[in-house]
């Protein structure tokens, strides 16, 4: 031990070997396939979002009369503002894509099964938080899409039994969408949600470490390989490719600003961002109560999927009911998404 290391060790009495242990964690050999390296990507994107988000707060003003002007200022006047906003916007979309891809991979490899059910809960929680982040994020721009998305999204809550109205008022900071709504959404977006997200990402990773990575069903291979540098290298390559793609996307398609929010005038053919298309289409097809009940059932089913899977297995062993039910749910979601995207 060098003198400097010994000096440091006296003051921070942690065994360096203990710190190196997570890096040396043995991973099952199937993780060498690229499709199994998607888990770290959302965490990296969250880091990019945090940095660009903090930069955006230097110019953004969360008050209705100034919010739109400040976003316009960031986009067209502030030096490199378009780039920072573009990266923030693009990374948020990519984060949803990568979380979805990671979830789909976990789902189809059944890595959520006993004893990893809790980590599936945390994962679904992270997905929900990501969507809430996106919703509160584009509500801050205060253009027509922002305003009407906030109006519709918050009005949906009012339909919940008993707690609906109080929740709506608490979320909006009043009975209608008003200046309080914007400041509350801003608080959620830059304070409450990042705190919850960081905590949940930490717990999610901790649980993976405690249980170890799930072995692939039907894969007899027992070999392992270390997390660092082999697996880490793959994660870094994916991260860099995403970053290159993102930067190029922003350069060729810089962000724009829509029309200023006009509370008395809903523009024709308004619709939310693509990730809310399935819910949007579903709400067009049913009454609000049925729509809300259906959405709550869907999310609840997603949350408790490990137990649904176990129950299906008990009902019909080795019939792969989980695969039929799960695939049907995914297909319905994709059909609704495409339906809304194409027909509008």
């Amino acid at each position: 031990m060098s003198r400097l290391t010994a000096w440091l060790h006296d003051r921070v009495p942690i065994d360096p070997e203990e710190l190196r242990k997570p890096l040396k964690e043995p991973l099952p050999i199937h993780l060498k396939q690229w499709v199994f390296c998607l888990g770290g990507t959302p965490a990296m994107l969250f880091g990019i979002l945090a940095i660009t988000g903090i930069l955006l707060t230097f110019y953004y003003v969360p008050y209705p009369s100034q919010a739109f002007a400040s976003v316009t200022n960031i986009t067209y006047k502030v030096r490199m503002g378009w780039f920072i906003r573009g990266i923030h916007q693009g990374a948020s979309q990519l984060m949803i894509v990568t979380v979805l891809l990671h979830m789909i991979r976990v789902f189809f490899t059944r890595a959520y099964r006993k004893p990893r059910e809790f980590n599936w809960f945390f994962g679904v929680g992270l997905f929900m938080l990501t969507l809430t982040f996106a919703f509160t994020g584009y509500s801050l721009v205060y253009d027509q899409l922002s305003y009407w998305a906030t109006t519709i999204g918050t009005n949906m809550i009012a339909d919940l039994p008993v707690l609906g109205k109080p929740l709506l008022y608490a979320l909006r900071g009043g009975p209608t969408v008003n200046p309080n709504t914007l400041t509350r959404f801003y608080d959620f977006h830059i304070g409450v949600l990042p705190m919850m997200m960081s905590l949940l990402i930490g717990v999610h990773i901790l649980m993976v470490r405690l249980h170890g990575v799930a072995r692939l069903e039907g894969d007899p291979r027992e070999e392992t390989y270390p997390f660092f540098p082999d697996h880490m290298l793959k994660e870094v390559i994916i991260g860099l490719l995403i970053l290159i793609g993102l930067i190029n996307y922003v350069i060729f398609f810089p962000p724009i600003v829509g029309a200023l929010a006009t509370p008395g005038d809903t523009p024709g053919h308004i619709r939310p961002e693509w990730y809310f298309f399935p819910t949007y289409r579903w709400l067009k097809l049913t009454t609000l109560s049925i729509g809300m009940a259906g959405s709550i059932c869907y999310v609840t089913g997603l949350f408790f999927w490990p137990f649904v899977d176990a129950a299906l297995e008990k009902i019909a062993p080795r019939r792969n009911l989980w695969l039929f039910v799960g695939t049907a749910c995914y297909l319905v979601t994709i059909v609704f998404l495409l339906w809304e995207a194409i027909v509008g």
Partner: protein
Amino acid sequence: MNGASNAEQPANTSAPAPRSRREFLADAFMAVGVMLGMGGLAFRFAQYLYPVILPERLVEVSAGKIADIPAGGVRVINLPEGPVLLESAGTEIRAFSAICTHLGCVVQYRADSKEFVCPCHGGKYDFNGKVTFGPPQRPLDVIEVKVKADEVFVMMKTQKEEKA
């Protein structure tokens, strides 16, 4: 003999000693106290977040001249209290709230089909405000109209504070 063998037995340090009733009650009181304290604090925090909602009241608001409403047609006006649809139906002047009863978007008037269409989820209402298509479950809210001379007034709900 017995005393000697007891003394030779190694003390079992791993098994936890059974908790006495006194210890259990102390822990239980502590837990209840913490829950009440934290619960009270959380309740106050929630109160802080809950906005002050003023009682709703009706106000008479001018909605322009009768002549501004096209005969047999609709005029859409944006009042500070909300958007309103003014209809001229024969000799009668009617008013509806322009807010869709589904999720709160503002409906648009289609003169060719004489119907109101919600641009958000595609809900449709006829000239009388009744739902003809889509997810809305309730007709458009009717607004009371008062005509004084050639001016139209509508009774709007508001939660704004009354001016002194």
